[in-house]
């Protein structure tokens, strides 16, 4: 429980490049790490029925999402040889071009970092209860659905 509280997955609004830089910098004391793999999800200005997506408004079922993130984290540590791992996901409005997901995996050698990062991203997309409203210029919206 301590471990979970220490690091909250959900971030209000977009994830800033500065948060990413700070996370990377913090790992310079962990000198058994040889490889980091970072996945960033960025909101696309998709065109849907001739209208441009301006932003996505994310919502979640927080208690269930936190349990799922915890399960994914545990599974990743048991499947792969990792030194550490961090996940951040936006909640609320994120504009097109901004970052909404930040998965950061570190390991001694590159294969585990690559395998784990991809596994985690696929798990999040498939199994974490997060929803996104794609908002257009005219303030109408559609609900996004992951593939």
């Amino acid at each position, binding site marked *: 429980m301590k471990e979970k509280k220490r690091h909250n997955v959900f971030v209000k609004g977009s994830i800033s490049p500065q948060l990413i830089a700070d996370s990377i910098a913090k790992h310079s004391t962990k000198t058994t790490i040889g490889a980091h793999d970072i996945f960033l999800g960025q909101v696309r200005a998709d065109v849907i029925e001739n209208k441009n997506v301006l932003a996505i408004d994310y919502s979640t079922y927080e*208690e*269930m999402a936190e349990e799922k993130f915890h399960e994914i984290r545990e599974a990743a540590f048991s499947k792969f040889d990792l030194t550490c791992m961090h996940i951040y996901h936006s909640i609320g409005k994120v504009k097109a071009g901004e970052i*909404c997901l930040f998965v950061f995996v570190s390991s001694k050698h590159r294969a585990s970092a690559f395998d784990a990062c991809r596994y985690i991203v696929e798990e999040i997309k498939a199994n974490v*209860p997060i929803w*996104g409203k794609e908002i257009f210029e005219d303030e109408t919206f559609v609900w996004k*659905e992951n593939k």
Partner: protein
Amino acid sequence: MLFGSLADLAGKSELWFSNCQDIQSLKDKLLNEFPELRNSKFLISVDKKLVKDNHQLQPGTEVAFLPPFAGG
């Protein structure tokens, strides 16, 4: 509890139903009250775990209707 597009369509995100022995009967009551949800895809969770229609319910249990996920 209703989330995402389901909450939008129903116009509310929390509902109380009594006398539901299992998920199937709860689902019938929900779709009866909100026919606009009939064309929606969703999964169902009980106490934050995904379940099937025939899952038994206790009074006071938190049930959530979850439309397709869009995280990331």
